[in-house]
């Protein structure tokens, strides 16, 4: 009860400070720091409640972000909004940093030895997802295009371009969600291994697919322009450049961990910051670079353990910040505007992902649990897809706004149901708690240290 009173008082403090805000300029980032402080505490308690009712903690973080974000409480009064659009923009650096650290964790959790057993499943499932989800979503959009108010006004080439771009983004899923759920429940087993490996490798496939789709859509929308070969060069630059930067950073970290061994959490922050900055300056994928760095450290040095320990030092605030800001960024008005089509898109994607993952796993001869349950890890969408939406809005004048609205609405649905489905999938597969009885009982928050046995090298 005393905590509820405290949270109410903290909320009152935020609202009162905003009401008393003076007209003069103030320290940059003040409002963002205040809002961040409030949502950190609230999200943590919401995560605890979420766990008590059997949902992942990140669902609590996301719902806190949605509730105190720009679109929900504003219906009562604009003064009640804690995460305003400006606040979310001000927290962009922290958000990118969090994504970089999550990507380092994703790469660091992936072990070559474990992958040797599942590489066939990885290849088959990714292929099946690309073919079935991409073709299925394209076909669905083309089938309903003339019946939906949002897209009905588009000519055939524009509708095809829209369908291709939506299908391209539908293939992507959220590595951050996968990692957060895995850190929270400590699962162990084939479904866990397959979902993690596919999530990391699919990132390259998704970037490639999206670039090709965007080039094709540009041709469809501007027929006289012809295929833009420069986009292929850009694609090669993005993928190989990110690999090179990731390897370079990985090597830097290995040398640091080997020679210095001090202040490793600080070094990880610096590396994530560096990766994000370099990627932004050079138009590379910071996510991919960080994943490669983490993968390199884990598999090509003896410093993997130190890396993961250092990342765990920061992990709880990282997940809370990332998913709360993700919740605050969810475009509720877009969902209100396009909900029938967005629901259709989200559930078509869900169905196709289920079908593609099952078929791919079956063709690869994967264990039964992988065939039956691994689809659940590929539903959530967040940062990567959001990034695609921004690019679409910039690069496809004419249809960009419609596509962005649909993508954002679809992300809103997928990001809310995705973590819950993955948690259920892991539970059905019997992999929650398989890492040890302690983890099964005390999975607690995402970000707590993994059990030593779980970190042992095979």
């Amino acid at each position: 009860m005393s905590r509820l009173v405290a949270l109410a008082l903290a909320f009152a403090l935020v609202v009162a400070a905003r009401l008393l805000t003076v007209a003069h300029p103030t320290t940059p980032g003040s409002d963002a720091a205040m809002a961040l402080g409030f949502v950190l505490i609230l999200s943590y308690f919401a995560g605890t409640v979420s766990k008590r009712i059997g949902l992942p903690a990140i669902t609590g973080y996301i719902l806190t972000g949605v509730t105190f974000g720009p679109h929900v409480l504003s219906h009562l009064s604009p003064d009640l909004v804690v995460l305003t659009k400006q606040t979310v923009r001000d927290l962009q650096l922290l958000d990118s940093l969090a994504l970089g650290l999550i990507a380092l964790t994703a790469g660091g959790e992936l072990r070559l030895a474990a992958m040797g057993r599942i590489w066939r499943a990885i290849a088959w499932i990714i292929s099946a997802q690309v073919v079935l989800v991409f073709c299925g979503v394209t076909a669905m959009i083309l089938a309903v295009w003339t019946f939906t108010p949002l897209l009905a006004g588009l000519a055939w080439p524009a509708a095809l371009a829209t369908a291709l771009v939506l299908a391209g983004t539908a293939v992507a899923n959220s590595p951050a969600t996968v990692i957060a759920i895995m850190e929270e429940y400590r699962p162990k087993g084939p479904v866990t291994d397959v979902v993690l490996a596919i999530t990391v490798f699919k990132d390259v496939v998704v970037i490639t697919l999206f670039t090709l789709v965007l080039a094709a859509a540009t041709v469809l929308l501007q027929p006289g322009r012809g295929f833009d070969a420069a986009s292929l060069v850009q694609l090669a630059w993005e993928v190989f450049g990110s690999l090179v930067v990731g390897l370079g950073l990985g090597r830097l970290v290995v040398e640091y961990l080997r020679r210095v061994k001090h202040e490793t959490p600080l070094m990880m922050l610096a590396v994530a910051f560096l990766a994000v900055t370099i990627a932004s300056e050079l138009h590379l994928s910071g996510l991919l670079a960080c994943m490669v760095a983490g993968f390199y450290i884990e598999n090509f040095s003896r410093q993997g353990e130190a890396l993961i320990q250092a990342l765990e030092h920061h992990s709880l605030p990282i997940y809370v910040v990332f998913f709360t800001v993700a919740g605050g960024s969810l475009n509720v008005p877009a969902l209100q505007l396009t909900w029938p089509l967005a629901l259709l898109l989200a559930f078509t994607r869900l169905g196709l992902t289920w079908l593609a993952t099952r078929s791919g796993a079956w063709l690869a001869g994967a264990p039964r649990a992988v065939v039956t349950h691994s689809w659940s890890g590929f539903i959530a969408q967040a940062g990567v897809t959001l990034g695609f939406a921004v690019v679409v809005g910039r690069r496809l004048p004419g249809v960009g706004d419609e596509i962005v609205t649909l993508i954002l609405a679809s992300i809103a649905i997928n990001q809310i149901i995705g973590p819950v489905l993955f948690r259920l999938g892991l539970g059905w597969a019997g992999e929650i708690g398989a890492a040890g009885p302690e983890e099964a009982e005390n999975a607690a928050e995402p970000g707590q240290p993994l059990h030593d046995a779980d970190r042992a090298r095979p």
Partner: protein
Amino acid sequence: MELRTVLLLAVIAALVLIGSRLSFGRRRLPLGVRETVQTGTAFLVLGALLGPHALNLVTERVLEQLGPVIVIGLGWIGFLYGTHFEWRLVRRLPRAFYGVGFTESLVSLGLVAGLGAVYLGLVADPGSTPDDLAVAALVLGVCAAGTAPAGTYLLTTHARLRHADSHALQFFAAVDDLPALLILGFVYAFFHPSLPEGGQVAGWQWALITVGMGLLGGWLMHLVFPRGTDVRVNALVLLGMVSLGAGAASLLRLSPLFVSVIAGMVFANLSSRKESVYGMLADREQELYVVFLLSAGALFRFDWTLLLGFAPAYIALRALAKVGGAWLGLRLFMGPSPIHPLIGSGLLFQGGLTLAIAVNLERTHVSALPHQVATIVVVAAIINDLIGPTIAARLLGRRGSR
């Protein structure tokens, strides 16, 4: 690849190499350089080099994006300082020690603020108001009043001073920021630049709001702080509460440092978990502190008039004020004592709190004066770390140190 990125990569790689060699190598560094490396002042130099006024690798835009981190850093430093003041422990220490610490602090504040007012009055551009001038001069004085305990601790370890002197130095360094911080809080309240639309809030009311926010922040922290022992969860809640209080204060153009110091004091006196919180604050300080030092360094401007003219005067006057103030304090409150009369020479170090005060002013006020204050404080912090240990070892070492 852009030149800036190449440079950034090169600088980071060099930093890793040099930092690791200097900080953790076996080579024994000279007095002064050792303090500069170990107290993190090297990051100030690095920030100055990388900042928008030198290599411009850390651009104004990056500094702006780091805004929330800087505000949180201010709160963290303030809260950590405030948690030291647990009444149960505070009252055990001799009052005379407080008298000496406060005297040297107030003498330094008064003398440097006076000199600052004269200098800034001469160089201020015509757009600066008397209030701008007063705030800048007072903040300069406040910055001069404090001492970095980390620097003093390293001095007492490396220079092997007598026990009585070491003990006194550490105590004075721990308390001499307190009166300065109180004055800082009231400077921000009484020189508040504006009023909210449609309302009339007087200076004393802003002062009450500042104190009230600190009290509320500490009490809320006490209420929400988890009872469990999970360090990560506790650190998250701590980070949240510190950000909330510092952000709210900063949004209202009040001092986040002052508010956080009060919140820290309240929490230290209410909670039974203060020991673990203090450990956590110190443990997690590193990342925030480095970002903070880099940001503070980035504010440095290569203004040669300032660097060759006022900065040496500031450093010299502050040193004299510290030595004179401590001497006066000893005479007033302790009479004959085993403490060296020039004990103030061991209180030259300027660290986290001082830099935080300068950063706070620079980020809040838009006139040119805060830039000058920040530059003076940054250069003084670096030089004091370099020369302070040598001066102190020579002066204090005459009586008994090896």
